[in-house]
């Protein structure tokens, strides 16, 4: 039953053929069996989960307050605050942090009756593309445990792919939901910037971060978005727009939908097997009645460089709060405040976080601000305009989610730039604030390939329409990792 989707399980739960308690116990039994190999979790919350499951069973008994997520196990990325439950960001500096409040997405999940089974591993502070930057342990890809699950939401993607959980939350700053979804053969959506509240999401780069779902299929992603989307007075960047019922977009038809294939992401640097899978997916959508054109977004060439100035600049400022004063680690025995700050941060942060803080501090420092940070903000405008131009003639754009399938552990850890380039297809989307969804579209050997569908701001429904039609006419989402 762990292989099933939330919407399939919802039917079994409402028909009382299955109890939420049984379902939660099954999730922990699966975790018991495979977690040693996958290492998707930082913290498991079994007692609390069983309590939530029993409450869900009461709701099913009374027939009151039942939502599509009631009794469904969900894993939460460990950079989203859970009151009284460790929230570590997979960092030594927050290893003992017990948030005094819930993130808005966690509040919503609890109110909907979802069963939170634990907190998932990530690259420290969501900085990375392989989950190897966790201060605790790397997570492994359930399809081949010698390879990475992607990152930074690698724990969430791997937990879904390994059927340790039914659903998971992720956060995406430059591809951190979509790239692991691609590597692990699951569905991952980064919503439009402002669509989901970031209140209680530990900030990395505030103008780029966004929370979204990781699921086994497109329908589950739509169900989760129905809950997560919406304005939150506690996040002034969340947008006050009505939330549609995203399931209405799951019609299974793409007739006359205008789809643009991004030329710059189908050339050099993209693995041949990935390119072939995307071409086959495009042909499938054409067969189903979509109108296909090729579009060019020449500024994409500059997206990775732009991102690696803007994101570290914002990070260097956001991470200033980890100073050993109000929470988190503090080194002992330092005689003055500045020395305490510097030693605490030296001890508490891992190499990638320090690298980005240094890079961001440099880009913002006197004498370099205009040449680096301001220049990057201007190029960001150029990238945004390229998207606007492409969307004049297209409803959605397509590309590979990642240039390769999952790579081996350790393959890119020595070369930060090589690691950064694995986000070449996802980064432009964050810079422009757009929504994008990754879904499985093939395999290279035993490793999944992801198709990225990009939409206009606040048009998540178009992504769901195209993705659902493709999914329902292919078999990829039915394959499961053999562990």
């Amino acid at each position: 039953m762990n292989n099933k989707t939330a919407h399939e399980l919802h039917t079994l739960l409402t028909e009382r053929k299955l109890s939420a308690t049984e379902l939660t116990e099954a999730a922990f039994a699966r975790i018991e069996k495979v977690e040693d190999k996958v290492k998707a979790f930082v913290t498991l919350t079994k007692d609390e989960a069983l309590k939530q499951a029993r409450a869900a069973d009461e709701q099913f008994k009374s027939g009151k307050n039942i939502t599509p997520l009631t009794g469904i196990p969900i894993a939460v990325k460990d950079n989203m605050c859970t009151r009284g439950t460790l929230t570590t960001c997979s960092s030594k500096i927050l290893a003992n942090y017990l948030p005094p409040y819930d993130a808005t997405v966690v509040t919503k999940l609890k109110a909907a009756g979802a069963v939170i089974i634990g907190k998932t591993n990530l690259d420290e502070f969501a900085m990375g593309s392989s989950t190897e930057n966790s201060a605790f342990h790397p997570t492994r890809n359930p399809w081949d445990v010698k390879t990475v699950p992607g990152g930074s939401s690698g724990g969430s993607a791997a937990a879904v792919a390994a059927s340790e959980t039914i659903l998971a939350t992720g956060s995406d700053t430059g591809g951190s939901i979509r790239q692991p979804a691609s590597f692990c053969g699951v569905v991952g959506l980064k919503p439009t910037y402002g669509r989901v509240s970031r209140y209680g999401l530990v900030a990395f780069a505030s103008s780029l971060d966004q929370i979204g779902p990781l699921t086994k299929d497109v329908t589950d992603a739509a169900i989760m978005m129905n809950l997560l989307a919406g304005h939150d007075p506690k996040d002034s960047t969340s947008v006050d727009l009505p939330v549609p019922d995203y399931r209405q977009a799951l019609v299974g038809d793409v007739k006359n939908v205008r789809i643009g294939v991004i030329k710059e992401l189908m050339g050099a640097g993209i693995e041949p097997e990935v390119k072939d899978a995307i071409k086959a997916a495009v042909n499938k959508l054409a067969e189903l009645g979509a109108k296909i054109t090729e579009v060019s977004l020449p500024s994409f060439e500059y997206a990775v460089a732009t991102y690696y100035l803007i994101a570290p600049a914002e990070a260097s400022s956001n991470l200033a709060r980890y100073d050993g004063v109000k929470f988190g680690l503090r080194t002992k025995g330092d005689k003055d405040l500045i020395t305490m700050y510097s030693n605490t941060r030296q001890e508490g942060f891992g190499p990638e976080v320090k690298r980005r803080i240094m890079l961001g501090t440099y880009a913002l420092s006197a004498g370099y601000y205009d040449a680096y940070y301001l220049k990057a903000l201007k190029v960001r405008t150029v990238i945004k305009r390229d998207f606007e131009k492409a969307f004049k003639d297209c409803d959605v754009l397509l590309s590979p989610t990642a240039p390769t399938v999952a790579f081996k552990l350790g393959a890119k850890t020595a070369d930060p730039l090589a690691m950064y380039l694995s986000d070449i297809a996802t980064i432009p989307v964050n810079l422009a604030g757009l929504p994008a969804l990754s879904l499985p579209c093939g395999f290279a050997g035993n490793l999944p390939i992801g198709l990225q569908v990009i939409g206009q701001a606040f048009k998540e429904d178009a992504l769901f329409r195209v993705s659902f039609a493709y999914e329902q006419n292919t078999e990829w989402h039915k394959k499961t990792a053999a562990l």
Partner: protein
Amino acid sequence: MQIDIEHIARLARVALSPEEKKLFARQLSSILEFAANLQKVETNDIPPTAHAIPMKNVLREDKTIPCENVEEILANAPDEASHMFRVPKILE
């Protein structure tokens, strides 16, 4: 490209080890060389984008509300006394 790593580490308040200084100097300069590509983009008449979605200031009434979980908040503090955060000496 020469980077004054000591200066940047001081601004960032991180006491890097000698090995880290050497490593980051090398890695940062290769990342910044890569970023120098941006100079090829003509941006004279292009405004900067700080947020991709239009943002405006959100104002609310400035009123006090009770804080119910002071103890829970302070429990995270490395050093606390009488509901205050204690830090090493600032002034001699």
